[in-house]
């Protein structure tokens, strides 16, 4: 397994990186490399030029921002797991990251790389949707901020333009006392989610005041379940959760594969969504 030949450029700064990708043909950006290198080894991707952004200091670091957090695009999963700020403020990030890849992959893979790759099965995008994160992009043309909820456009397709890089992710604070859960059902070989569900639920005096549910692995991209809103004002009774979970994939075209035929995946979506909602509700204070 050897990739085709390419030219390699290690960018020392954002400026260098943005200059290198602007207007160039056949360029791919590499950070941890755990999404890109396997496809290059199979020669399914044959870039002419690889821009390595893994050593750009500006892409690093996890810092508090208000009651939320800023996560650099180049932050590895391991750094997420080791971050006390994130653990305290967004336990769902810890929970999801623990399920991603394996120890070695978590040492190398980056949050920005995962979001830019936009694998429909990948875990992080649905969490970003549930947390209503904002993804900051930059190019030579300028900067822009895109909500995660607008960022994913399809399987392996995002809002990211060819000359843009993700710089960081802003995660806003959660409603006070919110309970969160990332629940997934993994394919036995790859460990990728057949279905993953991210839920955030807050309660006020016994009534649900905030409810978000996002799914990955189900359709061609991670998506927010519109029906989750309807839980606001409800008490979170079993029938209410059943209704939301049961309809979570309504209107979504689900394709089957050798691991999960379409009818099974549709059924599993309801089960996993239900479990995520249940856990989040239990965790809500």
């Amino acid at each position, binding site marked *: *397994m*050897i*990739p*085709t*030949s*390419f*030219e*390699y450029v*290690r960018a020392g700064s954002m400026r260098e990186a943005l200059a290198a990708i602007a207007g160039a043909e056949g360029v791919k950006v*590499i950070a941890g*490399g*755990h999404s890109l*290198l*396997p496809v*290059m*080894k*199979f020669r399914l991707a044959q870039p002419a030029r*690889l821009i*390595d952004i*893994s050593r750009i200091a500006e892409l690093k670091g996890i810092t508090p921002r208000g009651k939320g957090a800023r996560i650099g695009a180049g932050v590895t999963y*391991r750094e997420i797991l*080791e971050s006390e700020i994130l653990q305290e403020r967004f336990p769902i990030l810890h929970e999801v990251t623990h399920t991603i*890849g*394996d*120890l*070695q*992959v978590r*040492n*190398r893979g980056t949050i920005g790389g995962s979001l830019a790759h936009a694998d429909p099965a990948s875990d992080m995008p649905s969490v970003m949707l549930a947390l209503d994160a904002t993804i900051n992009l930059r190019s030579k043309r300028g900067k822009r901020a895109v909500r995660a909820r607008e960022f994913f456009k399809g399987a392996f397709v995002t809002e990211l333009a060819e000359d843009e890089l993700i710089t960081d992710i802003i995660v806003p604070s959660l409603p006070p006392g919110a309970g969160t859960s990332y629940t997934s059902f993994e394919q036995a070989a*790859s*460990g990728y989610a057949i279905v993953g569900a991210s839920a955030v639920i807050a309660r006020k005096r016994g009534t649900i005041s905030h409810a978000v549910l996002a799914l990955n692995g189900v359709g061609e991209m991670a998506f927010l379940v519109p029906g989750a809103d309807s839980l606001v004002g409800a008490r979170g009774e079993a029938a209410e959760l059943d209704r939301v979970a049961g309809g979570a994939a309504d209107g979504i075209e689900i394709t089957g594969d050798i691991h999960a035929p379409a009818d099974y995946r549709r059924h599993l979506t309801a089960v996993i969504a239900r479990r995520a909602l249940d856990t989040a509700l239990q965790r809500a204070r």
Partner: protein
Amino acid sequence: MKRSVILNVNRIARTVEVEPRSLLVHVLRDDLNLTGTHIGCDTSQCGACTVLIDGQAVKSCTQLAVQVEGMDITTIEGLAPSGALHPMQNAFWEKHGLQCGFCTPGMIMTAVDFLGSNPDPTDDEIRHAIEGNYCRCTGYQNIVLAIRTAAEVMRAQSAAGQPTSEPAGESTQRSPLPAAEPAGAGV
């Protein structure tokens, strides 16, 4: 086009001429003759190629050599000083944590990184930690036992302020497994 890259491998700065597309694992094996790092899959899953990069376990089949220029790389050959064994190596030997041995170097490197951040793990935590290292021979049971044993030894050594390797060499020390029942006892 080849370029000259310096890699700090097992505490020695090595200059290698590599193509940008050269995978770290190929450079280690083919250029530096460090064949203890193995290749077991194409898809970054089996972990046979695991090495430590700046102390963290990484699958060297999913790294370009140029990406790790200037970084500290430790392979199985450099885990312990020459002629000595790391407690993890010793525990794998002691607890029969290997059969064909092909996955073993990668397994050991992952386990070393893991114990660095979790020195007193449960068996479930160990099993989760080595999810990215496949073994087809052992059924993992003695690998888990070996890692738990190494953890105990390393905690004891660290409490006593000792270094983490000991002299290599064979011994006939009996394994702590129960002795066989007599032949034909037919219990």
